[in-house]
């Protein structure tokens, strides 16, 4: 085994900076870019670097950079809700399944199998498209679709904990099942759950922007990275910034979250390897 030297926390710093910036965009866009959707039809489309427009403008004269900043919340809030919702379902059902076992476990596992047989994009596309749902319908659908993986993950983690001595002693002590599950096992599962949640945020971000790219989700003129990507198709020759900026934002945000999530997972594994 490799000797572990204490490393400087490079990853959190490197990922933390862009994420902090995005967080600022999400929370404070109302104050940073209050006029993001302001039109200026006389200006029309301009390319990156024109006066006052770092990333150019679209056909209605809206500044691409400002739209992107305003679009951060649409890109990020939904995925966070999805990851949270999915993990809550995962924790609830996964803990029961893992600890109780038996037919409950079987049922939940088969339910998870059922949902996993369906590709995310396809189901989200079909459901949201057929009911003409918007942003939040998509969020709901994705929560449903992400939950099986979380259920399984939590279940596996709970099962791994169940054999441990401290649980045995809790059982011997006669502690109630619910108490054991949620007061003793769960705290040990949470770190891994948290890092998985982060990874889910990244995945949900990519999925949701893909769906708005396909035309579901937000309406025209509403700031959203996926929507901006789709709109850029008509702007490419006049303003390449309209493609590059939202694309880079999606990549950077997803990558940063992924890196952070991975790093957390690794740290958890390290600390749990010690017996």
């Amino acid at each position: 085994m490799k000797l572990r030297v204490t490393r400087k926390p490079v990853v959190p710093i490197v990922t933390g900076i862009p994420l902090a910036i995005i967080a600022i965009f999400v929370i404070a866009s109302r104050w940073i870019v209050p006029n993001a959707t302001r039109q200026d039809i006389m200006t029309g489309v301009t390319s990156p670097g024109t006066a006052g427009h770092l990333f150019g403008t679209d056909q209605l004269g809206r500044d691409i950079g400002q739209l992107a900043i305003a679009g951060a919340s649409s890109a990020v809030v939904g995925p966070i809700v999805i990851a949270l919702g999915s993990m809550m379902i995962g924790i609830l059902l996964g803990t029961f399944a893992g600890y109780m076992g038996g037919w409950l476990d079987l049922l939940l596992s088969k339910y998870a199998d059922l949902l996993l047989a369906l590709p995310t994009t396809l189901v989200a596309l079909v459901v949201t498209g057929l009911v003409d749902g918007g942003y939040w319908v998509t969020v709901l659908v994705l929560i449903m679709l992400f939950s099986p993986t979380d259920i399984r993950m939590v279940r596996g983690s709970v099962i791994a904990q169940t054999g441990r001595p401290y649980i045995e002693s809790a059982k011997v002590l006669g502690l109630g099942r619910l108490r054991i599950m949620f007061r003793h096992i769960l705290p040990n599962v949470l770190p891994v759950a948290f890092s998985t949640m982060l990874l889910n945020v990244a995945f949900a971000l990519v999925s949701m922007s893909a769906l708005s790219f396909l035309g579901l989700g937000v309406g025209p003129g509403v700031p959203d990275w996926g929507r901006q990507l789709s709109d850029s198709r008509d702007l490419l020759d006049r303003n390449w910034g309209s493609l590059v900026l939202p694309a880079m934002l999606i990549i950077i945000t997803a990558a940063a979250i992924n890196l952070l999530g991975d790093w957390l997972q690794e740290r958890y594994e390290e600390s749990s390897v010690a017996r």
Partner: protein
Amino acid sequence: MDTAHSHRRLTQLISRGSLTRFIIVRLAATGLLLLVLSFVVFALLHLTPGDPARNLVGVRNVTPELLQSIRDKYHLNDPFISQYLRWLGNVLHGDFGESIRNNTTVTTLLADRVMLTLQLSSLSFVLTVVLAVPLGIAAAWRTGSVLDRSISAASIVGVGAPTYAVGLLLLYIFGLWFNIFPVYGSGDGGFDRWWHLVLPAITLASGLAAMVFKLTRTAVVAELNQDYVVFAQSRGLTHRQIRSLVLRNAMIPVATSLGLVFAFLFGGTILVEVTFALQGIGSLLAGSVTFKDLPVVQAITLLTATFIALTALSVDILYYVVDPRVRKRGKQ
């Protein structure tokens, strides 16, 4: 890996664990799964907002006579169950009804397109496995090295990159500047078709490879951390022998997860097909959903789900055959 747990449980449930028995049980489970899915897919017609008959009329002028004839044709006034059974019966005969948009049978519409999507998927899959698995193994073998870190970083970018942006980038670089690959269309069949699918396949593989790379790396690292590796080392097994042992064991969870990867593949083809203007079932689905062409949507959803379920089944069987631990336990 968690799948390992559920599979071990399952084999415990089979008292005598012969392969045939296993297959039968899994087939039955898959069949049940598909039945439930088919029920849900059928119900889409009734779950979609609006009157089903009205939805089936599409853009034609709605007259009371037309609505009535649609109701008769699709037996919409019958009890739900008998409608479902009738629909299921048709489906099992390969009849998915008519497309609302085109007035042709759904099967005709799907015929050419299924082939293209299959070709695209398989090409992507091959590219992904060939690229990501060896890299995953190499990275796992040397965790923390420059190789590991750089490929991991690249894969993280790959997962986040929007399909449209990657596709367009590849088109410009390899289609236009270097003029190696054709810029549009799906070719004239045969080799030309595969050649046309290279850029789309690479685009699709970029996201997929990142996932598979991570999976492989995690699986191999997990195996390397197992006790038996230290044990084998202390017993003097050669490096090569240990490696093949570790890899064989690691490939099992990887292979199992590849089944899941296939599920993501299908969703991914939708985006790539739209980006590259390919006439596969992914782009057809996107168009049909926005148009609410229900028969087509139902057919594609069901076909995809079936395909994935069958793939998962095959992977399960393979897993059962390959994993000595599972088989041994079964033989007790």
